[in-house]
């Protein structure tokens, strides 16, 4: 009895398992279809995610399982709607075989191509070895560069030859799909945008507030530019020299009235600001009887000494050349010339403004001193230049 009962029990057990498996395998497609039909994937996932079920398989795993099932279900639904995935045909089937059309002996080309590719690759390899050897033994730049050039260059040639001779020459012709989306697609995209736009844009007040907000964002960002630089005022308008300042040489010694012979020049700076960009001044001496300075400047050249800003008024280079026979200062950048006898007025080249002149006088101890600042701010022109 007990034995029979036991057998019966095991049959029942087996039957139950079978039934369970059957039911599950039947339930799956049903669930699939149901889920597929009323697509609520987000709701499903959310429900699982929300419910904390302590002591069971972790939520993440459950979520993953359900998501996989869902993806599968969605795919199946897709298939139901669109039919089973068709075998895709290759777009390449219709490509023209140019080799065949031109009657190329492909076998011969491939044979030669292989040899060539091997040749170029071997050369590249040799170049690479030579480069590594030179590099690790600290070789010079010429060999390094040329060997690296051989390496990459031959490698490149090998690939081009490979592509030319070992790959069949084909030509594909495909229709160009129109760039514009079909009108309904465009309409629906535009419609969705407009709907959303109307959802957010309710009140004029909000509109103006957001415009103001965007403006404020721009204002804040643009304001940061202010941190990047100081006001141009002080440095652009400075005339550099002050009344009574001594003229100093490079080495920091003051210039005396016997420093130069007529026809020679030197670079001088205001006492206390040696070697700065805008302060550089060219001091030169000419024979006084040649001078044709304007009447107002007649006393500015004691003993034929003249001082001009050395920064070109055209583009700011150093006016570094002086031709003593023609009494011209010349800028080496754009070849503007300035006649020192008439107050460094431009006489040729693209400069439009004279080099600012520095009034000079000799003090009773024989030092040359500035009788004031430059006649104009030195350097290239700018809006608002006096």
């Amino acid at each position, binding site marked *: 009895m007990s034995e029979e009962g036991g057998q019966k029990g095991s049959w029942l057990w087996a039957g139950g398992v079978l039934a369970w498996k059957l039911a599950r395998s039947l339930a799956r497609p049903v669930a699939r279809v149901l889920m597929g039909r009323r697509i609520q994937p987000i709701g499903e996932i959310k429900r699982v995610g929300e419910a904390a079920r302590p002591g069971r398989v972790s939520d993440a795993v459950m979520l993953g399982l359900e998501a996989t099932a869902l993806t599968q279900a969605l795919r199946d639904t897709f298939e139901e709607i669109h039919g089973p995935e068709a075998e895709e045909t290759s777009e390449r089937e219709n490509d023209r075989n140019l080799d065949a059309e031109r009657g190329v002996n492909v076998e011969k080309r491939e044979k030669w191509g292989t040899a060539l590719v091997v040749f170029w690759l071997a050369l590249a390899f040799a170049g690479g070895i030579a480069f590594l050897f030179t590099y690790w033994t600290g070789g010079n*730049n010429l060999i390094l560069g040329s060997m690296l050039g051989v390496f990459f260059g031959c490698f490149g040639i090998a690939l081009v030859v490979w592509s030319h001779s070992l790959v069949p020459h084909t030509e594909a012709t495909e229709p160009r799909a129109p760039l514009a989306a079909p009108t309904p697609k465009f309409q629906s995209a535009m419609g969705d945008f407009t709907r959303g736009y109307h959802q957010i844009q309710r009140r004029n007040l909000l509109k103006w507030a957001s415009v103001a907000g965007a403006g404020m964002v721009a204002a804040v960002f643009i304001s940061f530019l202010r941190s990047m630089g100081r006001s141009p005022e002080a*440095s652009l308008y400075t005339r550099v020299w002050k009344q009574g300042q001594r003229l100093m040489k490079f080495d920091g010694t003051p210039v005396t009235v016997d420093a130069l012979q007529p026809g020679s020049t030197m670079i001088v700076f205001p006492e206390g600001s040696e070697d700065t960009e805008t302060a550089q001044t060219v001091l030169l001496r000419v024979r006084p009887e040649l001078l044709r300075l304007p009447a107002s400047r007649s006393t500015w050249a004691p003993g034929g000494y003249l001082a001009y800003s050395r920064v070109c008024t055209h583009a700011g280079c150093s006016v570094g050349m002086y031709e003593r026979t023609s009494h011209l200062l010349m800028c080496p950048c754009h070849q503007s010339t300035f006649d020192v006898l008439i107050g460094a007025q431009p006489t040729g080249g693209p400069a439009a403004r004279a080099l600012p002149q520095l009034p000079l006088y000799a003090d009773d101890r024989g030092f040359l001193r500035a009788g004031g600042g430059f006649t104009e701010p030195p350097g290239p022109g700018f809006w608002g230049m006096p």
Partner: protein
Amino acid sequence: MIRSTARGLDTRLRIAPVVREALNHVFPDHWSFMLGEIALYSFVILVASGLFLAMFYNGSAAQVVYHGSYHPLDGVKMSAAYQSLLNLSFDVPAGLLMRQMHHWAADIFIAAIVVHQARIFFTAAYRRPREINWVVGMTLLLLALANGYFGYSMCGDLLSGAGLRIGYAILLSLPVIGPWMTFIFLGGTVPADTVIPRLYAWHIFLVPMLLGVLLVVHLAIIWRQYHTNFPGPGRSQTSIVGARLWPSYTLKSIGLFLLLLGILAALGGLVQIDPVWIYGPYDPVSIIPGAQPDWYLGWIEGAMRLFPGVNLHLGSYLIPEVFFPAVLFPGLLIVVLYLYPFLEKAFTRDHGSYNVLRIPSQYPFNTALGCAVFSCLILLEFAGADDVLVMASSGSVVALRLLFRVLFFVVPIAVGVVVYTLCWLARRKHAEAHLLAEGAPQPR
């Protein structure tokens, strides 16, 4: 292995359709379509070699005294930036090679962009639907020019110092905003200590980032719109003819990249470029005679030399002489170039969409205009080196400059007329041949 990796990626990213489309993407085969590729690969090489240089370059204007392995400059005062360049060039293994490759790559980058854009212009590839990419491409060109200038200006050598001072004068010359803009962007008068760190930030971060982003946009647009085709049998506005991306185009393109890399490496090793140690460190009172900018800015230099010294006073305000040749002239050129596709549309009233290129002789006006502008720029390039020309010959700068001023007007007009005539003749001949072919009895 490949299959299982591909499967693994596809089950996670669904990449198969995308990859398939990419592998089958059709690119027309023509040598002139490589020019953009050369520019692209130069950019890649610029980024890679630039990364190497950035490990050693010190973007600081602080004054130091040099005691390195280059003895001629021992004990000389210089900026820390210049010192780091000397160390890079003389002490870092392959440092000089990388620096020269970087500079050569920059020159080739810009040259490739210019020639690429010329190809676009002369074949009218800028027409609808490609106007957007024309505008993107113009911006790429301007960014490349700016970054070239920033790059060679941050070396702290005497030549770059001259270039910076001229750049400063140009920026300063802008009406109304010039002074403030100059002081905000450069931090003061040149050479302010702030200039080199700023150039550094722009050169290695801001501009390359913009270039990278715009390059991606440029390529994405080309991908979406497909390349243009030259006219020929079997070509039509509604089809694309060419080779598949995989494998022939891929192999060829990688080969081109490596070949370019090889050429640049050889140039970097064998042909000296920008030898900063010969120029010496920047020093405010020294200047190099015969100083030239890099070639891609030479035309502005030429315009600056030819433009007469004219000051324009507006009331108590001044528009300096450099504004006209160095801001207004290039500015107008740039604006016209940006607007060219739209201007052509407005003038010809042709609003059609084109995927087949125009042969230059088909539309003589466009070709003649392009040639005239190019001849003008090349002339200005020579005018920008007139002092060197005078040194090499025995003429006078004044006479040469006068000649260049005359040629500036004569040459573009002459070139324009000649090219127009040639195109017109070619077009007529083409039309006759076409007519003959149509009229001739067809073989059966």
